[in-house]
């Protein structure tokens, strides 16, 4: 019996027993033995065991024995770190931009999750256990985002959602929203326009909130008769931001516009704010720290458009040294597979220590997403989200070997089948990578066989 057949059979058996039901998150138990445990928040523990029970880290220490029925992973000589968290990704969603209007806070990527994207598995292969599935940056106020856990294998999009994670929303400044505005000949077409659009949305949200508060108060008085205010999911979401129920994650590069949004948020009393990309964050690091805003950056990626020219690989280190909660993100299906390399670059550029560098892709990401009480470090009581590396994750030789989410092994380099798709398109055109023969032939003249006569005056 082939592997695929077995898989299908297993799936069928699972259906028959009704295992795949309503948003039931699978929780597992596993004992990780004798590894070098990089807790990130509580230092490094040599030759230490980590026990995960029913999806939660239940014990960290030496000589822990596996409870009956709990499997053991031998991590001798390996490095055990908290599952990596990507604070900026577009993985696992169908459709990224509802860019038709300048503001669309009512839409939500959580409505369009796609658990079948094999990129989720690839992220697991990079030790990433959770990511921030963000709306795009086409409009000034984009949609709400979803924090997902990489529970690859589920057919239910609800299961991807990290239950209890706070709501977040995408804002965008600069060239992306203004470019869209210019193309459509609508607002915003300039940085001034972006500021206006955001201020207007906040003002209308405030007005909406006041109207509804007044109506709800009046409605409870005896004998009340009157019309409710018009309902708007868009303005209701703006009101939720003003109430502090949603964390803003704002796409921004330039220092001037970062300052602008800090000012606007101060005026409207909005406190939960993280800047994404933030390439000029190093210029306004003290201001960011004073506000309490986070910054999520690339290690050394810039110059892909005009507003991203003024950049430095020291950005993350400067932000960290100024006390800004800083992360390194991927924003890419490729970078997400080696975020540990991206984090390691801050050791060359800025000399961050191991814990500081690892924080950029673990506990700090968790803080920016409001999930740091649950994930981001190896501590008793936290979720059993773990990445086990061969060699130190910040070493160029670091290789993720096993990735565990809620105590369930979701990636194992030793058992990595060729076809990891959950659904295969029955109408796909099968297109195979063309392999160049490795039999030692010279290929530099391939395709010229018929021309040998012409070229060399010889017959084949």
């Amino acid at each position, binding site marked *: 019996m*082939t592997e*695929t*057949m077995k898989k*299908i059979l297993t799936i069928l058996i699972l*259906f*028959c027993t*009704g295992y*795949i*039901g*309503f948003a039931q998150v699978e929780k597992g138990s596993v004992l990780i033995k004798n590894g070098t445990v990089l807790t990130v928040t509580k230092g490094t523990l040599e030759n230490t065991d980590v026990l995960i029970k029913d999806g939660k880290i239940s014990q960290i220490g030496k000589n822990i024995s596996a409870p009956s029925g709990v499997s053991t992973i031998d991590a001798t000589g390996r490095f055990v770190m908290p599952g990596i968290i990507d604070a900026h990704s577009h993985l696992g969603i*169908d*459709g990224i*931009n*509802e*860019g*038709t*209007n*300048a503001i*669309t806070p*009512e*839409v*939500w*990527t959580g*409505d*369009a999750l*796609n658990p*079948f994207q094999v990129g989720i598995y690839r992220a697991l292969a990079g030790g990433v256990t959770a990511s921030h599935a963000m*709306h795009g940056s086409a409009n000034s106020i984009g*949609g709400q985002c979803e924090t997902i856990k990489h529970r690859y294998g589920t*057919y*239910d*999009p*609800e299961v991807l959602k990290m239950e209890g994670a706070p709501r977040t929303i995408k804002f965008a400044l600069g060239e992306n929203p203004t470019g869209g505005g210019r193309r*459509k000949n*609508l607002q915003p077409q300039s940085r001034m326009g972006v500021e206006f659009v955001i201020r207007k949305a906040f003002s209308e949200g405030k007005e909406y909130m006041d109207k509804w508060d007044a109506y709800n108060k009046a409605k409870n008085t005896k004998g009340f*008769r*009157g*019309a*409710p205010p*018009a*309902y*708007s*999911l*868009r303005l209701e979401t703006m009101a939720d931001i003003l109430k502090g129920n949603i964390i803003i994650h704002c796409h921004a590069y330039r220092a001037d516009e970062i300052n602008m949004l800090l000012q606007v948020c101060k005026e409207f009393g909005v406190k939960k704010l993280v800047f994404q990309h933030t390439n000029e964050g190093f210029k306004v690091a003290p201001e960011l720290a004073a506000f309490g805003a986070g910054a999520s950056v690339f290690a050394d990626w810039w110059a892909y458009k005009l507003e991203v020219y003024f950049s430095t690989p020291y950005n993350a280190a400067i932000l960290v040294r100024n006390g800004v909660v800083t992360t390194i993100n991927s924003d890419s299906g490729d970078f997400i597979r080696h975020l540990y390399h991206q984090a390691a670059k801050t050791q060359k550029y800025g000399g961050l220590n191991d814990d500081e560098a690892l924080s950029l892709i673990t506990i700090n990401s968790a803080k920016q997403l409001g999930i740091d009480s649950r994930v981001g470090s190896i501590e008793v009581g936290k979720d059993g989200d773990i990445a086990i590396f061969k060699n130190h994750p910040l070493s160029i030789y670091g290789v993720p070997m096993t990735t565990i989410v809620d105590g369930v092994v979701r990636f194992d380099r030793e058992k990595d089948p*060729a*076809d990891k*798709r959950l*659904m*295969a*398109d*029955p*109408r*796909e055109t*099968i297109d*195979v*990578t*063309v*392999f160049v*023969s490795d039999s030692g032939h010279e290929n530099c003249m391939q395709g010229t066989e018929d021309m040998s006569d012409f070229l060399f005056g010889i017959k084949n």
Partner: protein
Amino acid sequence: MKRTLNRLTIGFIGLLLCAPMLIWSQAQDEKELAPVTRTYAITNVNIVQAPGKKIDMGTVVIKNGIITGVGKGIPIPPEAVVIKADSMYVYAGFIDGLSRAGVPRPKEESSRGDRTNMDPGNPTPEAAGVTPNVDVRTLLKPDDKSVEELRNLGFTVAQVVPYGNLLPGQAAVISLGGGTADQMVIVKNSAFYSELSTARGVYPSTTMGVMAKWRDLYRNASLTKSYEAMYASNRSGLERPVADPILEAFYPVIDQKQTVLFKAEKVLDVHRVYTLKNDLGFPLMLADVKEGWPVISKIKAANTKVFLSLDLPEEKKEEKKDDKKDDKKAEKPKTAADIEKEALEKRKAESIALYVGQASDFQKGGVAFGFSSLSAKAKEIQASIRRMIAAGLSEDAALAALTTTPASFLGLSDRMGTVENGKAANLVISDKSYFDEKAKVRYVFVDGVYYKMDVREAKKSDGKVDIAGSWAYTAETPNGSNTGTMVIKGSAGNFSGTITSSMGNSTADLKSISLDGDNLTVTYDVTMGSNSFPIEFTVVVAGDSFEGSMTAGRFGSFPVTGTKNPKN
């Protein structure tokens, strides 16, 4: 006894003489005289009254559109047209859960509205596809080819919906017969139809946009509805509410009096539709489900009425291998690319099997289901049902999905779904068991109106059908006539050719040309911008002319005629 027999015999002979004329008259214009009688007797027929309930060699009598006799030894009324259905099979007419039979596809421009100077973030409801107040009854065309196509397969009733995007409008259950739109309608406003699709380019343009728009409209409608109720109960001191036809269309749904009929092909569509249902609490019916096997338990737990799609992915055709090539291949060792390709082909075949096995999985999971033809090609439907049966669906379950279950889902059980006294005379008669590979539908009754199928046995090519040459064709599409020239060269087994079209200025190569008797099937691809879609001509050749249909992927199927250009 003898006298009765004599009388019957005389009547029978008389009727035999009349029958061909009656059939002939059916084929003529509506202006023709009404049928002499509306009484029919189908004799010597295997009656499948309901799934698992069969009467061998009995008689079915129908009168004025109603079944009046079912069984053995039933007296045949003297005025009856007798249909000698010796050893044929009669079933209750099939019921289609979701279709656009009788609803012509609107022209692209008119369906989307004028978009010039439109703010894409704030489009008109028509441009956005938010038209829940559109009633499909206003769009019905009884003589649309799609009605006949579906009826020829044995379907007599269908739930039909308007074209559109997220909220196309009100569904209706219609009879696949009848001279006027009003005569066709059995149940008006049978459901509130929705899809997770968008108009693209205007708000909402994404799945998440559709979900947000749904919530926004629904909650708005709930509020306006309660305010209207407050106003109606005592108008004093209250501002007059302003009626909004779009929000009003939601009211019966909010009252749980109307079901939302959601097209949900993919497993993720099903999940997303449930997300909306759970957020808002409307009654739900799922249709055109193609990937339902991972969500059987969810559908079962929610007790949702579900229609599975009759569209199946194409089975992999066995490649005709050249013997010589085979020998060569055997010598060569497999390359890494070969191995990868084989694995992918295998996975694809396994995936196809899952789609074909969906109905069987639902049966095993104990979930009742009907079928919907919305995205299926009419000529593949019968074969698709047989493929489902070959994959494990029982014939009884297949019949239930075509008759009793949809009748019950659509609230029609008192009127149709079985062959019983008092039920509407919706019947399908096939020469063999409907699920037999060679079965052909011979007669269909819709509300007692008799349709005889033109059963055309594919003749062996006797060399008289000569397709080589240049053909001028005309296809009638919703966007007007499409004309062009098709040139076929070569001889049987070795045809090649090209085709031009007035709707594009390029010449396309014909991908396949197959001639079976006088049935000619030709396929080619049309490229528009960066998209390419397949076209299929299925025509019957008679001398220097042909007639049939042209199927253009999701754009539908259109009548086509052609004549051969004289040789120079």
